[in-house]
């Protein structure tokens, strides 16, 4: 057996549900997952080899071919682009005479793009062998080039490269109400499971992950579902571009999060919980593991919690491997069970058929922290903030063209213009609320409110000033969805690629009116027929962009007449490169018109 593999397998108890963790272990050891390793893992776990190959091929951070000893992923969110990531990326590539996607000849370096790494308030950002480096500048890129040339292991690089800052700009109730460890559990124990469910229901807390489903209803349905085991899953797979609030919550409020999970465990009768943490946040792993260990030592996790006989609950940490779709709760459960992150057919819903087919509650980080506070301070306290249909507060991740990017917490109902003013935004032309899957707002809509009854938000708030080209913004989102589509259903798999292709034509100046028509048409097909929210929302930025920034899109058309997409002169570029010529005579039509 391959060296190290048996340790990785043993460390994961030869458990097929831990396949994603096992493959992560092999990536750390070898930098890629070779065909023979796939065969050995399949045999050891008694899985079909083809199934293991399918999982290895699904996640962005798994490589099935040798890559560089230094694997660089540049974060490709629009906020990284606005902060100059394209130029910085080129600087690194030029230093090693490399093209994007290639491995250098000496096997030293490979560079790829990845979706938003959650560093929008301190971008541009990259990952080196999985570890994030934020606040990239030409000087930092230069230092990184030297380190790569010097060949020192990433673990020995200066720590200051890897620091992640917290920009907490506005705290409201969630962020400023600490919970003494165990206090919320005590309150829930005193109240009992049934009354705890009732309090969470009465609080009218709605899920903070985006869909806004009532947390109390979810817990109650799960508690009522038949079955011997139940599970609590914390969705910490914060992947929506422009969102980084869970990163801050996990860093500074891990205790409250696990307290909330434990309260959920008590309320629904679960003995086991999972935190599914996105791969881009490996630096949070030690914090979370230390918090879990401390809570076990203090009798807040494990057997007979707080001395209550039979109240057993513990939490496992699972890492993702680069797949936005795993933020969708049923795809997350598939991944947690060691499979490709494909959204399930619903019904049945996770509350009755979740992890391993058992009743499961899946909640966002912010939601679970709120439930701990509700358990301690009660539902009336919680409802005193917010709007009639959106109780409590919302933690926003503000980035883009603002003076003070960072975390802003407001009671629900805050206007977009209030957030813009507080963050120091000027000459703003657009705000993308809730990320690419959310709503693109134009200036005339800045009076609207962040709330489930007006503009719902999963936390992202990306700001674009008048200097920005909105077609490029939408193009970035189109590339994001095509990169992250899981490919299960036809509309999303093909639709996101068609949209990316047509936006590419538009940006390259080869668009036509037919493209604008087809962009809308494909977007509507995706919206109406996709399997899950990814495809269901992938058309949002296109439809919003075409409606609200129509002149920008029409301005990209070289002509209102029909034009062929095929550019004869551009297709001769390889010949020009081969002959080293780029003079007028080497172009078919120098005027290109």
């Amino acid at each position, binding site marked *: 057996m391959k060296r190290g593999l048996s340790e990785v397998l043993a460390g994961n108890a030869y458990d097929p549900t831990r396949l994603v963790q096992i493959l992560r272990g092999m990536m750390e050891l070898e930098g890629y997952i070779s065909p023979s390793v796939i065969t050995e893992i399949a045999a050891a776990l008694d899985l079909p080899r083809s199934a293991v190959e399918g999982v290895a091929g699904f996640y962005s951070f798994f490589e099935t071919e040798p890559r560089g000893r230094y694997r660089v992923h540049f974060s490709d969110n629009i906020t990284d682009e606005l902060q100059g990531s394209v130029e910085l990326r080129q600087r690194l590539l030029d230093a090693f005479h490399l093209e994007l996607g290639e491995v250098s000849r000496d096997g030293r370096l490979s560079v790829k793009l990845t979706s938003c790494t959650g560093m929008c308030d301190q971008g541009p950002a990259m990952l080196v062998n999985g570890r994030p480096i934020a606040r990239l500048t030409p000087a930092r890129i230069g230092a990184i080039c030297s380190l790569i040339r010097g060949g020192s292991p990433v673990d020995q690089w200066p720590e200051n490269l890897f620091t992640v800052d917290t920009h907490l700009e506005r705290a409201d109730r969630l962020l400023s109400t600490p919970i003494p460890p165990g206090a919320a559990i005590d309150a829930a124990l005193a109240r009992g499971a049934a009354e705890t469910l009732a309090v969470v229901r009465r609080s009218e807390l709605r899920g903070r992950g985006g869909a806004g489903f009532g947390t109390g209803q979810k817990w109650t349905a799960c508690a009522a579902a038949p079955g011997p085991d139940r599970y609590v899953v914390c969705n910490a797979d914060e992947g929506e571009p422009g969102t980084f609030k869970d990163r801050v919550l996990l860093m500074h409020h891990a205790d409250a999060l696990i307290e909330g999970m434990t309260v959920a465990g008590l309320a629904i009768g679960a003995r086991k919980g999972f935190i599914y943490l996105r791969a881009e946040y490996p630096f949070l792993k030690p914090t979370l593991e230390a918090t879990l260990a401390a809570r076990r030592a203090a009798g807040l996790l494990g057997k007979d919690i707080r001395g209550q006989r039979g109240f057993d609950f513990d939490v496992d940490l699972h890492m993702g491997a680069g797949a936005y779709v795993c933020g969708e709760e049923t795809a997350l459960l598939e991944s947690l069970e060691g499979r490709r992150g494909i959204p399930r057919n619903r019904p049945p819903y996770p509350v009755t058929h979740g992890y391993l087919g058992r009743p499961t509650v899946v909640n966002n980080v912010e939601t679970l922290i709120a439930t701990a506070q509700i358990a301690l301070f009660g539902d009336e306290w919680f409802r005193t903030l917010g709007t009639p249909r959106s109780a409590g507060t919302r933690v926003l991740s503000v980035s883009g063209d603002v003076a003070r990017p960072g975390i802003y917490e407001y009671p629900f109902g805050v206007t977009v213009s209030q957030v813009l003013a507080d963050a120091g935004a000027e000459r703003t032309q657009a705000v993308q609320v809730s990320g690419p899957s959310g709503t693109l707002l134009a200036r005339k809509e800045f009076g609207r409110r962040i709330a489930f009854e007006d503009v719902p938000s999963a936390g992202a708030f990306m700001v674009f000033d008048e200097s920005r080209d909105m077609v490029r913004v939408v193009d970035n989102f189109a590339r994001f969805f095509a990169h992250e589509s*899981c490919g299960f259903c036809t509309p999303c798999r093909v639709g996101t690629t068609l949209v990316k292709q047509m936006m590419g034509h538009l940006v390259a100046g080869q668009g036509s009116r037919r493209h604008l028509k087809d962009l809308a048409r494909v977007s509507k097909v995706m919206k109406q027929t996709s399997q899950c929210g990814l495809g269901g929302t992938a058309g949002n930025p296109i439809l919003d962009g075409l409606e609200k920034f129509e002149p920008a899109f029409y301005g990209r058309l070289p002509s209102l007449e029909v034009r062929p997409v095929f550019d004869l002169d551009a297709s001769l570029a390889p010949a020009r490169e081969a002959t080293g010529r780029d003079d007028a005579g080497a172009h078919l039509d120098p005027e290109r018109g």
Partner: protein
Amino acid sequence: MMPPTPTAAPVPRPTFQLDDHQVPFTPGQTVIQAALAAGIYIPHLCHHPDFAPHGSCKVCTCRINGRMATSCTFPAAEGLQVESEAPEVQALRRDLVQFLFTEGNHFCPSCEQSGDCKLQAVAYDLGLLTGHYNPLFPDRPVDASHSDVLLDTNRCILCELCVRASATMDGKSIFALSGRGITKHLVVNAESGRLGDTILAVTDKAMSVCPVGALIRKRQGFRVPIGQRTYDAAPIREIAVQGAATAPGTGGQTP
């Protein structure tokens, strides 16, 4: 749709509305199962009566109680309002089938499956004349390493029927999917990646469920002449309903 024979006390079956029909169903059936059993065709590709609902191709999308949903995964229920032939629904299906033609390399005139191909037959049923979108022309492999079977992934529409058949009926798990998004592709259960190194047999159920020409039996080419093939005799709209009315499992429960 005939009333039951009046010997025993008649227990009326529950029904739902599908376009102009009242469709009876057995609890546990999906909308498409009940429809096909009642002789009403709903276009589909990844649905197969012998397998659990899958819901990936989305071609069987209907408007159910006002919202678009796949009829192959939607449980039949009393009083549902299902629209299948509405122009907006048919337009969505046309786009979805055009997406499939755009995504792969489908050259019907030179394909051995022409006339037996469900993708082609559904396209005719929907009245498609062109693929409309710019073809993606993907670079996909052909695997001729198996002695009896040709795997041409250019024609694969990723319905997973071979994956499901091999896993659940043949007990071999020869096929699986890898990659994701537009790079999703079929893989086979061999380190070499070659079909010839798997234990696939030409008699496997996986060999008989491919709706297109991705899995082809060798040495059978054009044994049945073009013009005398399955959908030359009658359109899929008629054949699928004959098949569904007699196929085992269609009217029964599905997990």
